[in-house]
């Protein structure tokens, strides 16, 4: 079965997130829409403040108390937005799991690795402590933790950053989730360990047929394991397509400029990088029209006057003057 025919595992529509702050409302995510099919990995790319994490924290029901969420998110047929914590807990950690950037602060320091993995298994699957421990061991082996039997009784501080992230992944996988959200899972790791963790995530996705959202600021990270890519800027998706379409033939000037400005390990050039001028916009003072306009080489009056809508079906772009490739 090709991915196009695979059932939609996570369907997000018109999702918006607004934070109430002492300085007034702050709009973090606008009209976010994405569907992720079984067995598919979608990379969600953007810089700090682009709204990529907030979108998925909203889906998980994990936003700060001052957040207001509107729109829809469905796990299979189950709606997620607006559900109570008790209702969400039937899905979270079971069918819908998330791993975070910092594997140290995401683990409980006073519980052993085995206890933390087993906790979720016992709670959700109602099996015995012994059975849960056996399953925890099997999970550690699946995520390629070395010396797994000994690790069960170790505490997080005894593990390296890479090992902690593997433990986080084991916890997320404990109840066989349908959807895994990985929020910058390798950003805190060394480049060699990053490659190992990404290879592991790619393998798990393949073997388990999970749907995966991979949130990252690094276009190189998505190139290795994503099937499709959504590029976000200033709280909105500005481009969506297959990983080949977006990275090899970007249509949005922001995506193209970001790709061009990244120094590449396989680039022998020594001259100045084609940097993007200016700063990402302050969400409180978004320019009228296109948010990328002030930094864009193709900007004109149309762009300053009206914000471009995200158009297209499978291949989408939000730009009045998208790049055309032969």
């Amino acid at each position, binding site marked *: 079965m090709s991915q196009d025919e695979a059932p939609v595992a996570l369907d997000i529509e018109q999702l918006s997130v607004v934070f109430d702050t002492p300085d007034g409302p702050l709009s973090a995510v606008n009209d976010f829409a994405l569907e992720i099919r079984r067995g598919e990995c979608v990379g969600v790319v953007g*810089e*700090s403040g682009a709204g990529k994490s907030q979108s998925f924290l909203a889906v998980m029901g994990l936003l700060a108390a001052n957040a207001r969420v509107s729109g829809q998110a469905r796990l299979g047929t189950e709606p997620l937005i607006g559900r109570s914590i008790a209702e969400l807990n039937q899905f979270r950690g079971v069918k819908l799991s998330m791993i975070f950037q910092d594997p140290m602060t995401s683990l409980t320091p006073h519980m052993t690795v085995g206890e933390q993995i087993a906790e979720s298994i016992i709670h959700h699957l109602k099996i015995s402590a012994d059975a849960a421990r056996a399953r925890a061991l099997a999970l550690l082996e699946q995520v390629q933790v070395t010396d797994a039997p000994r690790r069960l009784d170790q505490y997080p501080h005894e593990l*390296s*950053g*890479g*090992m902690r992230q593997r433990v986080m992944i084991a916890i997320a996988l404990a109840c066989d989730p349908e959807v895994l959200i990985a929020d910058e899972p390798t950003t805190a790791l*060394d*480049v*060699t*360990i*990053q*490659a*190992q963790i*990404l*290879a592991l995530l*790619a393998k798990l996705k393949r073997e388990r047929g999970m749907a995966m959202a991979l949130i990252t*600021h*690094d*276009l*190189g*990270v*998505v*190139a*290795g*394991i*994503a099937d499709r890519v959504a590029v976000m800027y200033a709280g909105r998706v500005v481009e969506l397509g297959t*990983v*080949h379409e977006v*990275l*090899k033939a970007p249509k949005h000037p922001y995506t193209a*400029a*970001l*790709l061009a*400005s*990244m*120094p*590449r*390990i*396989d*680039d*022998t*050039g*020594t001259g*100045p*990088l*084609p*940097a*993007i*001028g200016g*700063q*990402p916009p302050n969400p409180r003072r978004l320019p009228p029209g296109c948010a990328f306009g002030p*930094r864009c080489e193709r900007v004109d009056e149309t762009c300053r006057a009206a914000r471009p809508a995200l158009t297209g079906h499978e291949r989408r772009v939000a730009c009045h003057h998208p790049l055309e490739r032969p």
Partner: protein
Amino acid sequence: MTDPLLELRDLRVWFPIGDGLFRAKRNLRAVDGIDLRVAPGEALGIVGESGCGKSTLARAILRLVRTSGGQVVWLGKPIEGWSTSRVRPLRRDMQIVFQDPLASLDPRMTVGEIVAEPLRVHARDLSRAERRERVIDILARVGLPADVVNRYPHEFSGGQCQRIGIARAMVLRPKLLVCDEPVSALDVSIQAQIVNLLQDLKRDFGMTILFVSHNLAVVRRLCDRVLVLYLGKPMELASTDLLYSQPRHPYTQGLLAAVPVPDPDLQPQRLGGALGGELPSPMAPPSGCVFRTRCAHAVAACAAAAPRLQSVETGHEVACDRWREISASGAVA
């Protein structure tokens, strides 16, 4: 090579670690035997994984940490054992830019005061007006308007704070600028701006740069030569061209292969070739070659003796006894 600006001879930085009240102190060898000559005007990259000793090495050169052995030679003079007051005038010529742009700026000082502070310490004869002129001049050079002098660091973005940090380091026109992961905390679109700025400053002021970074792509763009460190020891030292096109050390090859490229035709295969294992504990480094526990080419002899840097060709040294048998694979064009 012309007379070096800076020379390191068997430099060592060992940190004594107390295991407990009754156990003997042991040493963590953060930097363990580095020999290096840095020419004036050169940009030298220092790369490796976290814990390889690259920041400690940079700080030891600036005497921000105490060295345990070997020598730092500055303009032909060994400065080991010099008192703080004797070293202070040298600091005028050696400045540093830190990783975290906001945390490295005093939040209670205005940008003008921050950038003027090195002048107040090292150029005390300047009048107030001259000082102000120098500050505004260097701010303009790093791309900041004069009116920022009365504002505070929290009013600026990460990229702008890093420009302020660079202005503070550059205001004395140092001979050596040490950059410790200067773009790691910045957004992707801002990194390129700062890399370009450092390139411009190097060209315009003929400054020598020590660029400490885990980002091998940025190092390729900016540096003339690269030193690869692993557990405090040198693995490979080569011109940038040779290091990236013909990496000789298996560790260098593994590091380069691990760097993702934003190309879906190349990257999935690259992931398959990632270096396995993790950095061993620096408290108990492997005998012989410290890299051998992760090396696909290791043989019994590698456990016996630590290889020293040996010359492959002019401008290319590698600390591996088996380099002749290992192809220069892992090259990245």
